[in-house]
């Protein structure tokens, strides 16, 4: 992996942005799959409104970390404190209702549905009408569909994907799919957004667009962002603080400049053959 910074030209985060207190505190998290130790005794915190990057070589446990945060994986040990409340076992849909949204490393869109329907699905936690109302197209059902359609269109405008709103997502090129997936997450109006390698496999232009969207989301809506990314240029440029994982252990944590000069981090990256 290259540690050079000149690959992308990105505006640094707006200086007006205020970073708040700790919103999510992860304490001594350990996660195993059979004999595989995916995460070992990891602690770090995430502050409100910040962009927090998680980096590390493949298999370091980054995705597992996100999965622990939104309840897809359940760690065997550790405490998770979200907005001052400790939780041990939580199902993913509960994370969603608490305002945590997420994208996936391998695109996890709903392939058989259109872009619009994917984004509308992102708003599902905000919908109250029942299936009986839906079947009869009665009462709240109609109003709700229209109100949420309006919100979905806002997301579509924000991400500049108006021209593909009725296209089945399976037919879109990779870069656009990643963007739609971001849209689906944004549609939930989350307070915390977990992004798993949102720029992997993109060209420089697409990356620039994606960076802009991430920064805009963070800036305009104050959304806290947890970002896994391999492009060091991007990470160093846009993140406020960085956690470094290697073989499921935390080997560095701090502002980008600190991390960049951390002996262990440099060794891990060189040692991993990048």
């Amino acid at each position: 992996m290259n540690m050079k910074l000149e690959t992308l030209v990105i505006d640094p985060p707006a200086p007006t942005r205020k970073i708040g207190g700790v919103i999510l505190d992860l304490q001594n998290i350990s996660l195993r799959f059979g004999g595989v130790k995916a995460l070992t005794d990891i602690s770090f915190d995430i502050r409100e409104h910040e962009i927090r990057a998680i980096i590390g070589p493949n298999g370091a446990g980054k995705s597992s970390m996100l999965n622990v945060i939104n309840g897809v994986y359940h760690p065997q040990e550790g405490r998770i404190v979200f907005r001052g409340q400790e939780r041990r076992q939580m199902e993913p849909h509960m994370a969603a209702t608490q305002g945590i949204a997420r994208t996936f490393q391998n695109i996890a869109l709903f392939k058989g549905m259109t872009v619009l329907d994917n984004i509308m699905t992102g708003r599902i936690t905000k919908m109250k009408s029942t299936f009986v109302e839906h079947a009869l197209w009665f009462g709240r059902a109609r109003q709700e569909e229209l109100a949420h359609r309006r919100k979905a269109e806002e997301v579509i405008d924000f991400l500049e994907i108006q021209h593909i709103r009725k296209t089945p997502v399976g037919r879109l090129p990779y870069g656009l799919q990643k963007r739609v997936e971001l849209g689906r997450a944004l549609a939930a109006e989350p307070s915390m957004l977990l992004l798993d390698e949102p720029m992997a496999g993109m060209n420089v232009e697409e990356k620039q667009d994606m960076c802009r969207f991430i920064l805009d989301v963070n800036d305009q809506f104050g959304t806290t962002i947890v970002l896994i990314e391999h492009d060091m240029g991007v990470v160093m440029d846009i993140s406020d603080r960085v956690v470094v994982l290697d073989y499921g252990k935390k080997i560095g944590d701090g502002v980008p400049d600190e991390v960049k000069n951390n002996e262990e981090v440099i060794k891990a990256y060189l040692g991993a053959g990048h």
Partner: protein
Amino acid sequence: MLYREAGQFKTSYAADQQLFPIRQDRIGVLLLLAAAFLAVPGMASEYWFSAILIPFLIFALAALGLNILTGYAGQLSLGSAAFMAVGAYAAYNFQLRVEGIPILVSFALAGLTAAGVGVLFGLPSLRIKGFYLAVATLAAQFFIVWCLTKFPWLSNNSSSGVISAQKVEILGHIFESPREKYLLVLTVVVLMALAARNLVRTSTGRAWMAVRDMDVAASVIGIRLMPTKLLAFAVSSFYCGVAGALYAFCYLGSVEPDGFSLEMSFKILFMIIIGGVGSILGSFLGAAFILLLPIFLDVGLPWLAELFHLPFSTATVSHIQTLVFGALIMFFLIVEPHGLARLWQIAKEKLRLWPFPH
């Protein structure tokens, strides 16, 4: 340029979210309904009503039920016929045991009973997927039919579980002739198809499709998997249950548990594979195809055999039928996994350009 959506710009989201957003579709559906309600009753013969139109509508309804579960929510079931049986026997028992209950209420309760049983057999879907679930639904198929045969109470102590459906009486009018029964079945099926269309285009349907396409992502978005899957089982079984009640009351008149066989469940599955998995229109197209094919073979094969002077028996017809069904299933899955509904869509796209090819 017969079928043109270009130029039909929607000026509001409401216009874009109508039942049928494209004008030609709207007109087409209205014409079709007018024909079905007004023209057909005047023209069709008794044979057409009782041998073709009524079973077509009833199986289309059952296929619609299975399509909700399999096509939209992604849960495979091999037990649709058993849920139809539940509907048929429930309707019979409500009529038999509840004094003065209106027949339509019996049908609705029959649907609800089937829904309840469907939820019960849908419970394993919370932990398993795909063909595991298919095996679990075989349990429903065999167990339900066995219960209906063995518990004398369910068939009012008739031998081997045969029941004769009571009269269909609504507001003092007795639906007796095939034409009247056709109109009743048609009304029920049209209303339920519209309800299904509403379900799948709103957030209920989106939740089902999300679970079908990627269940982990669905739960991460905030969809609760358990209620979503169980609702799919309930709604699907409700549709099959009502179809079963209609099957007993408006089609055969008297039914036995063994009639709701595994073979029938497969037939319904074939309807949605050939018609179009995840398509309401497809449920109708598939039902028509699967019901008409044997009729064509029955007529066509002896004719062909005679033409080529081949020996011929009725057993051969049934074997050829089985073989053709199997071959068609493989053919459609390989060549057009979205079935006849997709072919229709492609045809519409062609029409959009017609008569100008470019």
